[in-house]
């Protein structure tokens, strides 16, 4: 009886081990070992449907890291990266024309203009693609999500990988024109003398959204340097008209950055021509100082004014 019991126990153990192994193998590996990708079905007729390849969806399993990227002033920059798409049914099953990528930040999306380019295949199941996306100078700084999608010839389900990010750096960049301001003939004590070549047009050629400061410098007399027209004699406004509103604008200060209220030169596509990314500054001397001798006053001795962003 004891021997029979031991034998039965032994048999039971072996059976249990086999069941466990088969269970693991079936759930984990057999489909891949034998490439069993579908089930046969039959009706009363002999219509048999067997999907041998292509039934499994792809996996977008790798997106190469993108380094922190600087925008380039007033132009675009192409960012390239690699993507590996895995298909358990073999690389021939991956639909090359289905592999696209895009970058997203908030409501803005930048996408590949065409499908990513196939570079090479890896070890029967993977395809390496190269994707390129154009980013613009006005695109916002910060983290951008990278999304890659792909599908295969059989399953056709679009599979997404949105797990990667990259940082688009901040670029402060301006173009100002003209490079110097001038006034027509003015005389001591004259009121509301406005520049005759303003405005200073400031184009934002980067992606920073901030307020403009102006650091003015006293204008020194070129013949008699003891005389000057101080920076505080100048005002700046964002508009002009017959009423000369710039003469009631922000008063400047010598060698001190003065914030020009509402001067945000928000980033935008300058080529769009809708004043996006552009601001204008108008200058006035509300009252020319009294008792100035006849001479030229300029920034030659004191140094230039600066538009600070």
């Amino acid at each position, binding site marked *: 009886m004891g021997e029979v019991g031991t034998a039965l126990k*032994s048999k039971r153990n072996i059976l249990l081990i086999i069941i466990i192994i088969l269970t693991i193998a079936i759930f984990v590996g057999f489909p891949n070992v034998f490439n069993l990708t579908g089930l046969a079905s039959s009706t009363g007729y002999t219509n048999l449907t067997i999907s041998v390849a292509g039934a499994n969806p792809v996996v977008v399993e790798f997106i190469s890291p993108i380094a922190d990227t600087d*925008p380039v002033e007033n132009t675009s920059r192409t960012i390239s990266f690699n993507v590996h798409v895995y298909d358990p049914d073999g690389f021939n099953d991956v639909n090359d024309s289905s592999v696209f990528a895009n970058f997203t930040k908030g409501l803005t999306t930048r996408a590949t203009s065409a499908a990513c380019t196939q570079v090479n295949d890896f070890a029967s199941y993977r395809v390496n693609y190269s994707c390129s996306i154009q980013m613009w100078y006005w695109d916002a*700084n910060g983290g951008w999500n990278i999304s890659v999608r792909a599908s295969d010839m059989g399953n056709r389900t679009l599979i997404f990988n949105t797990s990667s990010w990259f940082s688009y750096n901040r670029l402060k960049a301006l173009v100002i*024109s003209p*490079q*110097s301001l001038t006034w027509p*003939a003015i005389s001591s004590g004259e009121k509301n003398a406005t520049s005759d070549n303003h405005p200073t047009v400031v184009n934002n050629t980067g992606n920073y959204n901030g307020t403009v400061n102006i650091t003015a410098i006293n204008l020194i007399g070129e013949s008699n340097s003891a005389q000057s027209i101080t920076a505080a004699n100048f005002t700046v406004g964002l508009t002009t008209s017959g009423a000369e509103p710039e003469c009631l604008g922000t008063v400047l200060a010598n060698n001190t950055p003065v914030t020009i209220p509402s001067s945000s030169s928000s980033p935008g596509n300058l080529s769009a021509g809708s004043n996006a990314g552009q601001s204008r500054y108008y200058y006035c001397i509300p009252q020319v100082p009294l008792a100035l001798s006849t001479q030229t006053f300029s920034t*030659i001795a004191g140094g*230039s004014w600066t538009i600070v962003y």
Partner: protein
Amino acid sequence: MANKTILLLEFALVLLASMGAASAFGVSSPYWNDNPLGMQPGEEKIVSFNLQNMVGDSDVQVKAVLTKGSEIASIEKDIYIVKLGTYDTKVPLAIKIPEDAEIGKVYTIAVEFKTMTPGDNGVAMGIGMSEGFDIIIEAPVAQEAAETAPVSAESYVALTAAVIVLAAFIIAFAAKKKTKKRRGAS
């Protein structure tokens, strides 16, 4: 009246002499106010600003001045020539955090960049950029556990094969033991 006339003539000359074209300049930075840099006590790092001159019509001379954070940071030189059509003139900022820096302490870095514009007749205009970011002192991070690599389908196949081989051994071993027992019993 005479005074005014003379002023008129001179300002007219200024007008002719100082009509200028556009001036352009840019600075990019990997860190900014909302994107601080985390560092640890004793850590050293070089952060580079990038000067750009893609839009102007001539090379630009830029002066860089570190206005905040000189206790932990330095710039190796203060004048940079940014060639026309370039966007990669680096301004390396060397940062060294003291060994005894308090965790959670925030250092502020500020660098002023300014085009060196000649005074010129009239009112010459230059461009300045004010860059800055915070450095937050963080506790040293313990060695992170090695990341578990995602298991691919090929790994599953290898695992399955290993399981089958192992099972074969176990079965063979069990069968052998059983046979021995039977022989022993008989």
